[in-house]
């Protein structure tokens, strides 16, 4: 267990700047998840912590040591790769034992550790197999086992579950969570998947174009987004983000008016981006007493426990929700209630939150 300090981290690939000054401070034992769209620099950041990429500027400290000049093996880290990167010619046992063998650990101690970890990960019956004879999920577990046997100070994961099917991914996610509870190591975990981010993280770092957009607990990221980008990134279906006009009594959304309180700084006539999650837009009958607007519903998606209600407000397509048993006609206008107490307002120019 050790803390990780990333200070003003910069990465240049030739003339292309991939990272523009990243600052992250991870507490000992914290599970930190990096998310963001493809190409935003998540892997680059992780690989710089691992020592697989050179550092163009800034500082990385693991524990109390600045590790900028250290080689990967001197950093006390273990990494799980997206494609597992298991040694194809070695058995599962030797894949897991390799780093210990290299560190000249006595054989009985190696054996004890490998078998203990294999036991935790239910790999014991597979120890003599080669990776080629394993399923995707089993390979994934071997890759984790290889990281765990070293008992590193820090675990680094780069999209470890993205090659698994949905069901297995759910299982492995829970398994990783359990492992973290048990081992209490500091973890940096890169993913595309916002469910993984929300469920695993103690801290989520949202990146965009080589910069940090926002970092905080999953709660803070989801319920208190700082920018339009973060608001739209987390949540599925995503938050509705629409251009509105402020009126004396509320907002003008397309042709309809919605009565609500607006932030103090906004005067009537000003433009604002209003963000409201689909969960907060429901048929008026579901949540009486809220601001309602009658809008044309053009599509209903049945998800089982709930239905997604697609409707139009002016030129905007928006999504609301209702229970899976509620009957709602497609192609007809319908009164929907907007829970404006949970609406977010953003400046259309800076895209930052107006509080």
């Amino acid at each position, binding site marked *: 267990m050790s803390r990780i300090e990333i200070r003003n981290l910069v990465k240049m690939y030739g003339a292309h700047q991939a990272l523009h000054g990243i600052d992250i401070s991870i507490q000992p034992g914290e599970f930190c998840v990096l998310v963001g769209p493809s190409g935003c620099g998540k892997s680059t950041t992780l690989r710089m912590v691992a020592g697989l990429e050179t550092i163009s500027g800034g500082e990385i400290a693991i524990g109390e040591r600045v590790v900028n000049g250290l080689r*990967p093996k001197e950093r006390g880290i273990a990494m799980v790769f997206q494609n597992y990167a298991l*040694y194809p010619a070695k058995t599962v046992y030797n894949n897991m034992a390799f780093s210990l063998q290299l560190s000249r650990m006595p054989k009985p101690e190696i054996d004890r550790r490998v078998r203990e970890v294999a036991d935790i990960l239910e790999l014991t019956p597979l120890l003599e197999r080669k990776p080629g004879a394993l399923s995707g999920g089993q390979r994934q577990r071997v890759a984790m086992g290889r990281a765990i046997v070293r008992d590193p100070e820090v675990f680094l994961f780069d999209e470890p579950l993205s090659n698994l099917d949905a069901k297995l991914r759910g299982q492995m996610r829970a398994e990783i969570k359990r492992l973290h509870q048990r081992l209490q190591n500091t973890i940096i975990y890169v993913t595309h998947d916002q469910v993984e981010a929300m469920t695993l993280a103690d801290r989520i770092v949202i990146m965009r174009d080589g910069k940090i957009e926002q970092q905080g607990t999953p709660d803070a990221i989801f319920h208190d987004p700082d920018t339009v980008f973060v608001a739209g990134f987390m949540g599925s279906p995503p938050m509705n983000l629409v251009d509105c006009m402020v009126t004396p009594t509320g907002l003008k959304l397309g042709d309809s008016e919605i009565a609500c309180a607006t932030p103090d700084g906004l005067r009537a006539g000003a433009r604002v981006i209003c963000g409201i999650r689909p969960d907060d837009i429901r048929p008026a009958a579901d949540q009486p007493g809220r601001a309602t607007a009658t809008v044309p519903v053009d599509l209903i998606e049945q998800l089982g426990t709930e239905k997604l209600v697609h409707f139009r407000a002016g030129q905007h397509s928006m999504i609301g929700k209702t229970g899976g048993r509620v009957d709602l006609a497609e192609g007809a206008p319908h009164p929907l209630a907007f829970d404006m107490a949970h609406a977010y307002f953003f400046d259309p120019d800076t895209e930052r939150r107006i509080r």
Partner: protein
Amino acid sequence: MTTMLRQMTTRGTPYLFLLPGLVILGALLSVPLYKVVEYSLYDNVIVERNPTFVGLANYTNLMTDPGYWSAGFNTVVFTVGSVLGHMIVGIGLALLVNADIAPRARTFFRSMLILPWIFTAVVVALNWQLLLNPFGLINYMLQWMGLTSEPLDWLGDPDLAMWSLLLISTWRGYPFIMVSFLSGLQTVPRELYEAAEIDGAGFWHKFWHVTLPQLKPVIFGVALLDLIWTFQLFPLVWLSTGGGPGRATEVLSTLTFRLAFVDFQFSQAATVAVSILIISAAFTLLYLRNEARRL
């Protein structure tokens, strides 16, 4: 009936196209093959109009001929030495030119290092004769560096000739191995090296635990192929040392040539050729089995 005919023609078409090639190959291969085996069973072929059938007498002669055994021994030394040389130099250079350097420099080095392969044996042999000459560049350099006081007769000294020949053969033959390994190296996933690096592996450990296992099938196939080629290699040896000095570098192929075209003992030459054929065929079978297993 018609469908059968049509099936036969569609199935037969590829073979029809192959036919001319097969015929030419068959004629060029099977006739000499047959003739060589036939010659080895007669006495005084070609020189006499009516050679006498002697059965396996030529073979028993050969078995008791110390010249044959010494040539056989030299062939083994030359073949094993050359293949080892090719392998070591080829793998080493492949690793070097696979390094992460400027792409232009890499292309330059790769092209330069393939050069030895494109010269014909005559040019290679002549060049090395000039270099290794007692008054040649290499002796000059050695003397200049103070490593030797007397110029060495690299190709003329019986103790040195085989080593010099191995040097020439290694220089000549490594590019094929290098190119094979280079393409093999590029199929090794980068993540494996990164994983090994994190596991604490240095250069040699990465080579031993990641590169070699990945290249093993390539290494085995290429080594066998090289063995087959080198085993019957003639021009380079003949042109560099001519099997000399004395019989110091006489290999089976030069022995065959000498018996046939210097001593005009065509029967005996044919017998040696058949012995080469049998050994080469054995290696070829081994190679084919290895290839089949890889598929």
